[in-house]
């Protein structure tokens, strides 16, 4: 009969039991999961059962981790996502969540750029931790991503993005994500990028502040290569702050737009 061992299809003799499977394939495994349930006693196996055997404290190698992580992806998606090279300009409230989502998704190469360090006021919505205060954001985010998957191909650039250095900073990416904070910076980036690389897709955000209705955040294709996420109007200003839920919604709109671009799906 066929079962799945650590997400890979495997033929085993009829009547094989859980402990025998472990003894044959992963004798040091001390965590045994059968169809999502942690087991400490032996158990019959049936065709198409999903068994995960883990040795506590031991990390799977790159190839096995990839197979394990991609097991929950829609079939056929992984190879195309893996070929993607995506830049993220700014890793604050938007960019830190986007980077983590795309790293979990298995994007082949991520280039992140930001000049900032982690401050206490960031912790209300950005993917940083209190023990990272004062660290450059790109460094702190790299730590977190490596904790999710040490094999992610991640390039960190700690610098303030300008019209002069933008193109060189993201020269190797197919898709750029604008995740900056100030309206003037967003405008500079979009203007500079679209003129420099008219054929490369750009996923930008505007109008993510406050706590207005979730469904007011939209993803819109503005022109062939420009996608805008957000409500387009709600600015961060005194009386209208930036909060984890709505910034997170917009960030994941952007991440999903990147995924759809990588898969050649229509944006809206």
């Amino acid at each position, binding site marked *: 009969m066929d079962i799945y061992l650590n997400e890979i299809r495997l033929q085993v003799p009829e009547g094989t039991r859980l402990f025998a499977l472990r003894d044959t394939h992963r004798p040091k495994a001390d965590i045994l999961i059968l169809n999502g349930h942690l087991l400490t006693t032996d158990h019959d196996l049936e065709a198409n059962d999903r068994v995960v055997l883990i040795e506590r404290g031991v990390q799977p190698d790159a190839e096995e981790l990839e197979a394990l992580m991609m097991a929950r992806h829609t079939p056929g998606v992984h190879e195309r996502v893996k070929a993607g090279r995506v830049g993220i300009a700014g890793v604050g*409230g938007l960019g830190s969540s986007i980077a983590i989502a795309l790293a979990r998704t298995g994007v082949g190469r991520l280039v992140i750029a930001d000049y900032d360090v982690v401050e206490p006021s960031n912790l209300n919505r950005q993917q940083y931790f209190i023990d990272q205060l004062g660290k450059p954001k790109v460094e702190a985010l790299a730590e977190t991503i490596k904790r999710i998957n040490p094999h992610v191909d991640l390039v960190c650039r700690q610098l303030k993005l300008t019209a002069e250095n933008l193109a060189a900073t993201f020269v190797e990416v197919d898709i750029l994500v604008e995740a900056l904070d100030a309206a003037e910076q967003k405008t500079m980036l979009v203007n500079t990028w679209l003129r420099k690389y008219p054929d490369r897709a750009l996923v930008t955000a505007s109008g993510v502040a406050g706590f207005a209705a979730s469904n007011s955040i939209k993803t819109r294709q503005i022109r062939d290569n420009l996608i805008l996420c957000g409500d387009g109007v709600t600015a961060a200003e005194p009386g209208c702050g930036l909060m984890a839920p709505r910034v997170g919604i917009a960030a994941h709109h952007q991440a999903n737009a990147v995924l759809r671009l990588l898969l050649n799906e229509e944006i809206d």
Partner: protein
Amino acid sequence: MELKINGTQKTFTDEILTVTQLLEQLNLSVDQVVVELNRDILAPGVLSTTGLNNGDELELIQFVGGG
């Protein structure tokens, strides 16, 4: 003058000679909007010297702060 802005036809009675003048009339800040004129993205430095003609099509992509 007739201009198509973000897909909508608009008529302007005041004289508008340049892109900068149009943005002023629309109360848009020049450093918070990306201007596409007849499919071309305009560099920020040319907004005040780029003239507008009857029938031009513009996309004005406005950005607000927050991220």
